[in-house]
């Protein structure tokens, strides 16, 4: 390598690598050590306690409630989002036979469906907090009350609140995957659909025999994204629900417990231990998802 070349490479890499080491790598590395300490308070110095935090964590009911909620979201959010998005993408592209044009108004539908994706999660959380209001001033409860039903405590009923969270998460995510899957379907050659249609395949058969298998790679990527998003849920819970994860811990998630433990209780060691658990869940999920969904790639 010539002298000028080396200087150029070093010069271009110096700032990004330095920023990345200081603000990303160093904190992650420290977190694993802090998880082994009893560090509390902003000024106190940490003492090494080994795996004590993890021992306590295994007996911490609130944390396991949060883990349970994350796992529920991890299963249901991708399932619902991918299911609904596939359905709409299939409709929009006329089951693939429409080519790039799709059905009438497909561009309009795609534009509308995608819009929630560009809104901040914090904004969506406040918006739905109002939509879910428990009395007749709530967008959803007003018609229920008018029809003579009992109002639903979307965010105040401990048996309902988590489902409300799930609903909002799916509401925001669907449009992105409709667009993603539409692009995938549009890239499948039209001849395949036409040949199958001539052979007498119906709408459902086209979907399961052609669209789904040829879209598998894209679906797989979407699944991993959604799963990781389900493990990282924070703003929607923190902003929308009572007591930041309530009522009575019925909607709390790992990220909310980590933030609460670190920045409201100032138990830094304990919060980092929770972070380490979340880390292993994320890595575990990603590895599992990639393993399970590995299958032969269909070239077309």
């Amino acid at each position: 390598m010539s002298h000028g070349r080396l200087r150029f490479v070093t010069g271009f890499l110096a700032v990004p690598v330095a920023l990345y080491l200081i603000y990303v790598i160093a904190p992650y590395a420290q977190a694993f050590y802090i998880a082994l300490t009893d560090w509390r308070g902003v000024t106190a110095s940490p003492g090494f306690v080994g795996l004590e935090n993890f021992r306590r964590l295994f007996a911490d009911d609130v944390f396991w409630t949060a883990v349970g909620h994350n796992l529920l979201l991890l299963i249901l959010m991708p399932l619902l989002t991918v299911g609904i998005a596939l359905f709409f993408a299939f409709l929009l592209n006329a089951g693939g036979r429409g080519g790039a044009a799709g059905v009438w108004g497909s561009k309009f539908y795609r534009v509308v469906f995608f819009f929630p994706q560009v809104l901040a999660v914090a904004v969506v959380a406040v918006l739905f907090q109002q939509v879910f209001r428990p009395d007749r001033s709530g967008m959803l409860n007003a018609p229920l009350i008018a029809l003579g039903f009992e109002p639903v405590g979307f965010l105040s009923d401990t048996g309902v609140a988590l489902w409300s969270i799930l609903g909002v998460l799916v509401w925001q995510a669907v449009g992105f995957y409709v667009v993603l899957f539409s692009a995938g379907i549009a890239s499948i050659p039209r001849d395949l659909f036409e040949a199958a249609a001539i052979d007498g395949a119906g709408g459902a058969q086209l979907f399961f025999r052609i669209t789904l298998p040829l879209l598998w790679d894209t679906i797989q990527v979407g699944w991993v994204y959604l799963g990781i998003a389900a493990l990282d849920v924070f703003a929607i819970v923190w902003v929308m629900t009572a007591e930041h994860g309530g009522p009575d811990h019925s909607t709390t998630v790992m990220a909310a417990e980590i933030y609460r433990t670190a920045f409201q209780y100032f138990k830094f060691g304990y919060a980092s231990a929770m972070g380490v658990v979340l880390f292993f869940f994320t890595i575990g999920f990603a590895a599992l998802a990639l393993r399970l969904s590995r299958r032969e790639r269909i070239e077309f």
Partner: protein
Amino acid sequence: MAEAAIPRSRALAREERRRRLGPFGVLTHLALLVWTVLVVVPIAWTFLASVKSEDEIFGDAWSLPAALRLDNWARAWDQAHIGQYMINSVVVVAFGVFGTMLFGSMAAYVLARYRFVGNRAIYLLFVSGLAFPVYLALTPLFFVVQNMGTLPVVGPFIGLNTHAGLVLVYIAYSLPFTVFFLAAFFRTLPGAVAEAAFVDGASHTRVFFQIMLPMARPGIVSVTIFNVLGQWNQYQLPLVLLNSDRSKWVLTQGIADISTAAGYDADWSALFAALSMAILPMLVVYTIFQSQIQKGLTAGALK
């Protein structure tokens, strides 16, 4: 679609029309309209509530306002400081995205097109950041930024409760995706033009800024859109790093705070106005750039 424009027979035309209507005919559009309503109504309802009086907001949710109370918007802008928060967001995102794109494209370019010892290791270091949950780093990150604040000279500008400090953190956390995406993009570019420029005596830096960067424009646009939205919508990092100085808050913090901290004496009509104010610019920008935005955000998943 020239072939579809001139239908050869009536049967073909009917077939084409049926195709455009969708696999299940009218039912297709019924299903699509249901979701359209689900998306549009909550947002439209918020805009409607933003011009209602306090009493109307606490009355029936579906009633129309008796008069348009535009003063709600004025109160949200001034008294709820939404104007200030919005300016803060614009400043932070402008510098954050500029820095991300500058440093991200520099690193990605070098990693994609130069062979040197440690190239692979540095690339993997960046890409591994894609897998880490940010919550693991929160506590140490808070102290890293606090310690940066104690540095001589630059300290007061990049510590806790400073916009520059937040910008640096945004840049660092946006690098994994930016480097990953752009490195893949730079690898696909042909090398002939750069070779010719080197022969003509252009420096490495010059080749990057004047030849390779313009050639990578589609990729740069996609990642820029991705980063603008990601940084504009960020809530967790400012919550930790700008916590104690309200005048520095970004828009997401301001909106979330009006609803969480508000008690019974809260200004609800101003809340709806503030919410509408946060949605409106996104709606306008999205309507103008929707196809680029859709492409930019989904490009990452298709790579």
